[in-house]
C-alpha cells in the first residue's frame, strides 16, 4: 500500500511538472507581455529602451529557457510579484485559498446533507413517484447555469426582499462573524444546488447497485430490519464510490467556483484567477492555475487512496 501511494505520488509530480509547462506556454499566449504594459505606462520609452528591458527581464529568451528560469524560482518558493495586487504572489494567494476553502466546505456540507437522504430514499423505491421527483431535482441541478442561479438569488433576496447582501465577504468596515456568515449564504446556496444535483445521482446509483447484491439478500433472509440493512449494510458500502467521486471532484469544485465567486464578488481562488487573466497579471495567473492543477491531482490521488483504504477487497500488493 505504501509503495503504491509512493509510486502514485511520483506519477502525480511528473504530471504536475508537464502540466506546469503547458500552463506556462498558455499564459505566454495571453496578449502582450510585461514590457508592453510598462510601455503603456511610460510612453517616452524608445525602441532601444524596449529592447534592453526585454533583455533585462529575459523576454528575448526562447520559451523553454524562460520556463526553466521561472520553474527554478518557483521551486525555491519565489512565485514572483503580483502586478494587480502590488504584493508578492504568495501573499495574494493565501487569503484567497482560505476564502475558497470556507465556501467549498460549507457548500459541500449543505449539498451532502440534502443529497445523501434523498439519494438513499430514492434508491429504496426505484421507479416510485418519490424517485421520479428526486430524479427531476437531480436533472434540474446539473442543468442549472450557476451564474443565472446566483443572479436570480441576488434579484430575489438582495434586490426585491433586501434580506441578504448581494456580494462581497463582509460589510465595508467589518461587521463581525454574523456579518460574514450572512455574506456566505447566497454563494453557498448557489454552489450547493449544483453539487446536490450531481451527488444525488451518484448516491442513488451506488445504493441501487449495492442493494442488488447477495450479502443484502443474506441480511434480509436472516431477518434484519429494513432500516438496519439500509443504514448498516448498504449505506456504508455505497459510501465507497461516493467518497471516491467526491475526492475526484475536489479540483473541479475548486475552479468551478470561479463563476459563483465572480457573480458574488467573493475573493476566492476562482475570482483571483479570473481577475489575474483579465488584468494581464501573468505571475498571479500562473500561480493560481498551477495551484488549481495541483489540487485536482491531489484529489485524484486522495480518491485512489480512499478507495483502497475503504474497500478491503482492493490490495495493491
Amino acid at each position, binding site marked *: 500500500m505504501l509503495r503504491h501511494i509512493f509510486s502514485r505520488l511520483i506519477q502525480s509530480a511528473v*504530471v504536475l511538472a508537464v502540466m506546469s509547462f*503547458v500552463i506556462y506556454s498558455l499564459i505566454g499566449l495571453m496578449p502582450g507581455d510585461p514590457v508592453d504594459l510598462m510601455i503603456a505606462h511610460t510612453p517616452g520609452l524608445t525602441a532601444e529602451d524596449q529592447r534592453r528591458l526585454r533583455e533585462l527581464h529575459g523576454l528575448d529568451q526562447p520559451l523553454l529557457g524562460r520556463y526553466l528560469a521561472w520553474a527554478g524560482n518557483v521551486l525555491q518558493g519565489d512565485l514572483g510579484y503580483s502586478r494587480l495586487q502590488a504584493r508578492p504572489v504568495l501573499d495574494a494567494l493565501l487569503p484567497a485559498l482560505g476564502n475558497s476553502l470556507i465556501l467549498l466546505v460549507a457548500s459541500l456540507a449543505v449539498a451532502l446533507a440534502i443529497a445523501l437522504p434523498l439519494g438513499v430514499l430514492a434508491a429504496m423505491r426505484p421507479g416510485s413517484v418519490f424517485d421520479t421527483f428526486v430524479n427531476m431535482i437531480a436533472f434540474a441541478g446539473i*442543468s442549472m447555469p450557476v*451564474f443565472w442561479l446566483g443572479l436570480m438569488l441576488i434579484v430575489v433576496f438582495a434586490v426585491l426582499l433586501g434580506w441578504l447582501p448581494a456580494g462581497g465577504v463582509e460589510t465595508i468596515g467589518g461587521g463581525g462573524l454574523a456579518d460574514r456568515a450572512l455574506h456566505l449564504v447566497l454563494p453557498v446556496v448557489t454552489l450547493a444546488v449544483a453539487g446536490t444535483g450531481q451527488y444525488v445521482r451518484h448516491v442513488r446509483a451506488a445504493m441501487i447497485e449495492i442493494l442488488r447484491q447477495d450479502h443484502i439478500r443474506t441480511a434480509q433472509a436472516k431477518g434484519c430490519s429494513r432500516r438496519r440493512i439500509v443504514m448498516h449494510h448498504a449505506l456504508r458500502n455505497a459510501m465507497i464510490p461516493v467518497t471516491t467521486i467526491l475526492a475526484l471532484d475536489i479540483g473541479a469544485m475548486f475552479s468551478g467556483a470561479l463563476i459563483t465567486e465572480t457573480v458574488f464578488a467573493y475573493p476566492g481562488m476562482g475570482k483571483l484567477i*479570473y481577475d489575474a487573466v483579465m488584468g494581464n497579471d501573468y505571475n498571479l495567473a500562473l500561480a493560481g492555475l498551477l495551484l488549481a492543477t495541483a489540487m485536482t491531482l491531489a484529489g485524484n490521488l486522495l480518491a485512489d487512496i480512499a478507495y483502497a483504504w475503504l474497500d478491503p477487497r482492493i490490495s495493491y500488493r
Partner: protein
Amino acid sequence: MMDGLSRRQGSPAARAIKRFRRHRLAVAGLVVILLLTLLALAAPLLEAWRGVDAEAVNLLARNASPSLAHPLGTDELGRDVLARLLRGGQVSLAVGLAAALVAAVIGTAIGLVSGYLGGRFDAVIMRLTDGVVALPLLPLLIVLAAADPAKLGLAPDLLPPEAQGVLRIVLIIALVGWTTVARLVRAATLSLKTRDFVRAAIAAGAGPGRVMRRHILPNAASPIIVATTLSVGNVILLESALSFLGLGIQPPVPSWGNMLTGALDQVWTAPSLAVWPGLMIFITVLAFNFLGDGLQDALDPRSEDH
C-alpha cells in the same frame, strides 16, 4: 412468457425506438430541442413580421416593461428582448452542436486508434488524456479564450470578427472536451477487437483502417451518440458561462450568456432582465440532458428488463 416473447420482436432499431418512446422526458426533451431550433432558425422572419430589429438601439425606450410591441420588454439599450433571445438561441445552439460534434470526432479518432493499436502508443495517449482531465477546466478555458491568436502566427483578419468569436469558442471547448468520448471509444474498442467477428475480418485480410471503420466504429456508436448528446448541454453551459464572463461571444452579437452580463450590471435598476436568457439556457440544457438519458436507455439493450 408471452409478454417476453412479444417484446423481443422487431429489428434492434425498432426496439430501440420503442424503448426511447417509453422515456417520456426524453421525448419531451427532443420536442423542446426541435421547437427551439425552429424558433431560432425563424428568428429573422419573426423579426420582419413583428417589425422589430434585434440590433436596433432605441435610447428613448430603455428597460421598457412588456408591451404588445415588445412582449418581453426592452433591454438597457432599448433593444427588443424577445428578438435578441431568439438571435442568442441561434448562436448558443450552433456553438453547442458544433463544439460537441468536433469534440466527438477528435475523441472518436483518438480513442479508436489508441485502443486498437494498444501498447506504448496507447499508454502515451492515455497519460495525455489524464493530463488534460487534470487541468482545471474553467480557468483553462478563460486563459484560452483570452489568448492572442496572433501569437500562434494566425492572421488576425482571416475571418470577420463575429465569426472569429464563434469559431474560437467552438475550437477551445472541443480542444478540452474530447476526453470523455476518447475514453469511452477506447474502452469499447478494447473489448470489440478481441471479438470473433473482428478477428475473422482481420484473418480475411482487412487492414487496420478498414477494421476500425467498418467493424469497430459502428459497434461503438451507441456510447458516442449518448456522450455527444449529453455534452451538447454541457457545452451550452460552458459557452454561456464564458460569454457571461465577457470572454465568449462578444456583443453586439447576442448570446444567452452575454445578455446576462448586461443583466448583472442592471440588477438594481432592471432586475427582470436577468430572467429570460437564463431560463432559456436552463430549459435547453435540461432538454439535452433528458434526451441523452433517454438515448442511453434506448441504445442499451440490457436496459430492456427494467
